[in-house]
């Protein structure tokens, strides 16, 4: 286990999460600033960015002081020099989730943010090309949302039946 040598800037709620990662819960306003401070602190790589829709699990455990919302963006940063990970969970809203893009800090988040937009409908301010990436361009809805029913869309082979 790697000892936690990190501290987040004041005002950001933090918690130790599993596997000795540091978990941070910034507000959307603190988010980019926080990521930037970690980047300056030696976190060279943004390994992963994904969204979670907590519609059916709103009562999840979070540290005190965090106001949970339906959508959450989870960012995993990695420091190669410190051999440490940090996980940042941002609560981005219930209805029309919008959050700042990390593109200007880590260009590698481009595809991941597009994926989060495509599958969850989370919008990213400042993303250069926010289009669908996995689903077809004319797809309606965001399939990984919890209220997007599984199996409702008839598969269109020949002679597709009309809407049920």
């Amino acid at each position: 286990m790697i000892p936690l040598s990190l501290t987040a800037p004041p005002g950001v709620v933090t918690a130790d999460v599993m596997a000795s990662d540091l978990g941070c819960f910034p507000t959307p306003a603190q988010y980019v600033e926080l990521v930037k401070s970690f980047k300056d602190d030696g976190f060279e790589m943004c390994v992963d960015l994904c969204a979670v829709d907590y519609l059916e699990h709103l009562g999840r455990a979070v540290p005190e002081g965090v106001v949970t919302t339906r959508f959450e963006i989870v960012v995993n940063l990695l420091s190669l020099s410190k051999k440490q990970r940090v996980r940042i969970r941002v609560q981005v809203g219930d209805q029309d989730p919008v959050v700042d893009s990390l593109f200007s800090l880590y260009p590698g988040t481009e595809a991941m943010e597009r994926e989060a937009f495509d599958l969850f409908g989370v919008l990213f301010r400042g993303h250069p090309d926010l289009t669908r990436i996995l689903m077809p361009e004319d797809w309606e809805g965001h399939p990984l949302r919890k209220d997007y029913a599984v199996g409702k869309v008839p598969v269109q082979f020949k002679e597709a039946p009309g809407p049920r």
Partner: protein
Amino acid sequence: MNDDTVRVAERVDPLAAETSEGAQGLQSRRRTATDELGREVGAVLRGSGLTLDPNDVDYERRDDETMIINMGPAHPSTHGVLRLMLELDGEFVLRTKPVIGYLHTGMEKTGEVLSYVQGGTNVTRMDYVSPIANELGFSMAVEKLLGVDVPDRAIWIRMMMAELNRIASHLVWLATNGMDLGATTMMIFGFRERELVLAFFEKTTGLRMNLNYVRPGGVAADLPDGWEDDVVLICDTIYERTFEYDELLTGQPIFRGRMVGVAPITAEEALALGVTGPVLRSTGVPWDLRRSMPYLAYDQVDFDVIVGTYGDNFDRYAIRLNEIRESVRIIRQCVEKMPKGDYRTQDPKVTPPPRARIDESMEALIHHFKLFTEGFHVPAGEVYSAIESPRGELGCYLVSDGGPKPYRLHVRAPSFVNLQAVPLMMRGGSVSDAITVISSVDPIMGEVDR
């Protein structure tokens, strides 16, 4: 950044609407916004502090000088259903945009309706060339949430199988890469040797691919009798034959001409793009999770992390070839040090009772039935666990709400992220080099699209 409006591309070109995916594809220059153009040509990476470098983006270039062509999704050298849109000036590539999603089957959504017991069958189909890596990433995430300890033997079996799979995966890469360059002998050789590994997989797990062998709590079955001889034979054969590949490719002038110095990428660019695995190591960054953040028992075996210098195609080739040799080294140590004991945890919460008990005990039968119908409950929480797959960091982000199915299963697929480096590597190269670039990044489309 502080704009309140978010630009979601809503561009419709009447001709393109008939033939393409629309805004997902590569647009003509006058339809492309500056920041997007800068991203497509990699100017965001070259400028200082990741701002656009104006000298690097020629906005003024007219559209009638260039041509946008499609490569894929059914092109034989795009390794699956990858579609690349290339903007060409004669023979040279100016911009590239990978268009993906042709193999999207909603596996992350499927993962939410399968229990943790069934989950392995789903994730193993993501990266179909190295299924063990997927299962391992998933199982380790589940075990972290469960707090279950895996017996030593299971750990070493997992490690050995993962390395065998790494060999098989790199062999497929060598084979297809050779094929792309016209070295059909390498294609035959690569698949011939891979067959040895797959035959052993079949003997151990019952399947050649999509094994569902590594499961939460251990592995599905113990190694078969006489496995040591099989594995040693595989190691000897493949190790010997890597030197044949050396003769066939490494020193071969045509091969070198196509690989050396082609499509270089720097360490800064690779890190900024989140690239991992052999592509990152080819730039000289010694980052291998097996060494840097050891999991399983990688801290107890002796192996070298292969690192390149120039970040070009040849380095990526050399790294993969030598990683086969290092994997052979690890497997030999696994054979020597394989501990005795259980191959799965004896925690009855995750492990079904032995087959013999089911015949004589009603409780065992119920237990077995419950485990495979309802599954086991996993404490609520979230976890990210990462391993080094043959293609880079394979992460599994798992959210549990306390039920028997994952609330959210996200797989951080190395190919998906590495694919972002393709436009950068292709820029300024010729179309024929584009093919070697795709194969040197080694994208597996099942994993990219999930």
